[in-house]
């Protein structure tokens, strides 16, 4: 397999010197249009969420128009079942959706990264134990499990964040573990161990920086999945209904007869917004992962990975 990107840093590894990753992200963006698009989308929505309270045309909580008013020049996307301006709701709903997305992903990344590093570095029974746990959790259907836990705990944003975080660390753990296991064999790591550096030092100085980009790619992909799960949980009524997120917007529409009232504007824009953000995360995450190690194939039985989003393509024209 040819490397689409000639990464001089990788070549340096053969010399027993840890490769530098400066400008890695920049090189990814330069080479891959998709990464630029993905990053642009994500940044756009983050900015939008930050300035939303200042630029949204109407309140996202108070009634400013008749219930289910159709799109008009005053309300571009019409109004929902509470007479709230849809456009404002979408703008501000994004804030919480993204916050939940990032928070849950953070939880998943911390757990997943930690488990992956520990498992890959220390090996043997720690590895076996942690990987068994990972395997068991992998098989349990995500949404069903999340639904059960969220229902038992009660509908609240905090519970949603914790539940999703607990479920989504497993794929990250496996990927990081694989990476750490191969890193462990590198010359510079062995040298550091030979001169007596403590595991903590080796991990923080030599392993973490190398694992960083992979973790970053995985983080971005996990955000996509987390947002997806949040909308599903909200739709099933397991999220705090007083909070406006992209997920609860769909839930309100469903519960308050948007379809039979013909109020398509309470449904259609919301789905597009969610999809665009997820696609953005996907594009960026895929691009980074591809650039890192194009040898990563979809599946090999010995490294059975749990990938919710498969790898997209090969070659310079690949996404």
């Amino acid at each position, binding site marked *: 397999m040819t490397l689409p990107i000639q990464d001089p840093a990788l070549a340096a590894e053969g010399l027993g010197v840890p490769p530098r990753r400066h400008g890695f992200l920049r090189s990814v963006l330069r080479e891959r249009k998709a990464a630029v698009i993905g990053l642009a989308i994500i940044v756009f929505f983050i900015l939008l969420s930050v300035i939303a309270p200042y630029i949204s045309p109407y309140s996202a*909580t*108070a*009634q400013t128009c008749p*219930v*289910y008013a159709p799109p008009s020049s005053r309300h571009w996307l019409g109004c929902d*079942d*509470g*007479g709230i301006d849809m456009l404002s709701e979408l703008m501000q709903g994004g804030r919480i959706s993204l916050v939940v997305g990032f928070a849950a992903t953070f939880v998943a990344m911390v757990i997943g990264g930690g488990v992956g590093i520990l498992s890959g570095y220390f090996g043997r029974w720690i590895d076996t134990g942690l990987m068994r746990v990972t395997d068991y959790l992998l098989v349990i259907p995500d949404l069903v499990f999340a639904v059960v836990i969220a*229902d038992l705990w*009660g*509908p609240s944003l905090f519970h949603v964040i914790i539940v999703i975080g607990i479920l989504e660390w497993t794929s990250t753990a496996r990927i990081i573990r694989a990476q750490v296991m191969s890193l462990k064999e590198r010359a510079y790591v062995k040298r550091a161990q030979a001169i007596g550096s403590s595991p903590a030092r080796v991990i923080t100085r030599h392993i973490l920086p190398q694992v960083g980009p992979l973790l970053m790619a995985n983080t971005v992909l996990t955000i996509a999945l987390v947002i997806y799960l949040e909308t599903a949980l909200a739709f*099933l*009524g397991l999220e*705090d*209904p*007083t909070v406006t997120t992209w997920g609860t917007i769909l*839930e309100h529409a*469903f*519960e*308050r*007869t*948007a*379809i*039979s*009232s*013909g109020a398509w504007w309470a449904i259609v824009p919301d789905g597009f917004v969610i999809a665009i953000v997820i696609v953005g995360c996907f594009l960026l995450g895929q691009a980074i992962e591809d650039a890192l190690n194009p040898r990563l194939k979809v599946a090999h039985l010995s490294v059975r990975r749990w990938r919710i989003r498969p790898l997209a393509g090969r070659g310079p024209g690949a996404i």
Partner: protein
Amino acid sequence: MSGLRKHRPAALLAAAAAVLAVAACSSGGSGSSGGSTVKQGGVFRMGTSSTIDSLNPFIAFQSDAYTTFEYIYPTLVQYTPSLKIVENFARSWNTSPDGRTWTFTTQPNAKWSDGKPLTAADAAWTFSTILKFADGATANSAGYVAHMKSATAPNATTLVLSYSQPVANVLSQVQQVPILPEHVWAQHATGNGKALKTFQNTAPIVSGGPFVLTKYTPKQVALFKRNASFYGPKPHIDGFGLQFFQTTDAEVTALKSGQLDGVEVPVPPTSVATLKAAHFTVRSSPGIAFDDFIINSSPDQQASHKELLNPLLRQAFDHAINRQAVVATSLLGHGKPGSTIIPPATGQWSDPSIKPVPFSLATAGQLLDKAGYKMGPDGLRVADGHPMSYTVIMPSDLAGEYLNRTFQIIQPDFKKIGVQLNLKVLDPSAAYDAITANNYRNFEISMWDWFPLTDPDFMLSVLTCNSFDVWNDTGYCSKAYDNLYSQQSAAVNPAQRQQVVYQMQQMIASAQPYLVIDYPDSIEAQSSHWSLLPEVGGGSFNSMSTIPMVSVHRL
């Protein structure tokens, strides 16, 4: 999500009350005998977003189950659209002078759908069995036989019910008891009667009412076929079906596309406009339900929110609820501002002197000032040393409907007068647990609803001390109130009873454990190819009467 309508009174009744009294036992016909010009035949397809949870009357909770029993099992009496009680299986009745013995004359030569005779003995067996296991297997129905001593059938057409004291609302109580075929059920009533609750009673069911339940697929459909051996006026239709949907949106969409002929209450207000535009018959009539704002009324409640007992606080809260806005937005205009706990639509029992409290944030603020709760630096008033911030418990099934929107209207208004409300949504049983926790000491505020009966007894009983951990969701308990309650339940004279009932409403209106927010209209929609289904007590498909499905016909 369609949840269990816990407050459907058909599920559990607590005690007795007088009804339209002996004078009302007019044996007027149920008025459904169609003329020969009425089209016969056809199947009426009804949609529902509720479910039949069980076909066993001793277990079922959901209203659709009760409606099923109403149509397939005979009841002694039933209601008419004007809420009069008229004959059904019982053709006439009278009371002994001391009011403790009721004698019913039942239909002669009646048969069950399997050909066996349907007599007063079946009725006697049903009532006796409920009495026998009232502490165990038949506890759900025990309320209907309160104060009953015995039920006997001296002959095939006479049923005698004896009571230990005069009971005012015998007729509305027996109206709710489906008479079961002894020859099917007796075998399960052995020992401690536990088998009564595990008997599945699968379709096709041996029925004695105007319809036979021929097919039942859970979560899909229940099919009712005209009962050829029914003792009363025969339905015009060949049968009707009840199809189960997960949401009202799916139901209404099915109605619009011609999959259904009618949808059960409630039709959400948001669908009214599109249905009318599509030439469906939509009726919005004053309902007997109400939404409430519950303030913890237990005198032992936690010190951290004991100020909730202050009458000035309750009056202030009452003035801070913008009922007009709630009706306009949550109910889309299909409702009325709320006042008394016995809704006006129930007729003579509702006290007309109790009016909705006008919305005025200024008055609310003044009342709180008068109570000494000064505004703090962060925009919240301080009461007894702590900021006025309260958790509002709401059941999830209502939060998913419009009660959430109602809260969103109330919350900012309360903020303006310096009171913070925080919503906590729990599923219905967790919500009730939260309210009753620690003997009602812990909860602060809740928002819920009630579907009381047309007879006020049930709703009044909810606020009694006896109803703690049963139906009482306020922590309110007053000996004076309980005394009045016993008075009205024994008051056979309707004028006298009305006085007591009015007195009780006024007592509640000043104690304010409930702030009644609104009375949502009862909205029904049906195809215009069928005759108008009569509404009985706010709905055309419920357990109060068989008249709607018996009288409906194609146009």
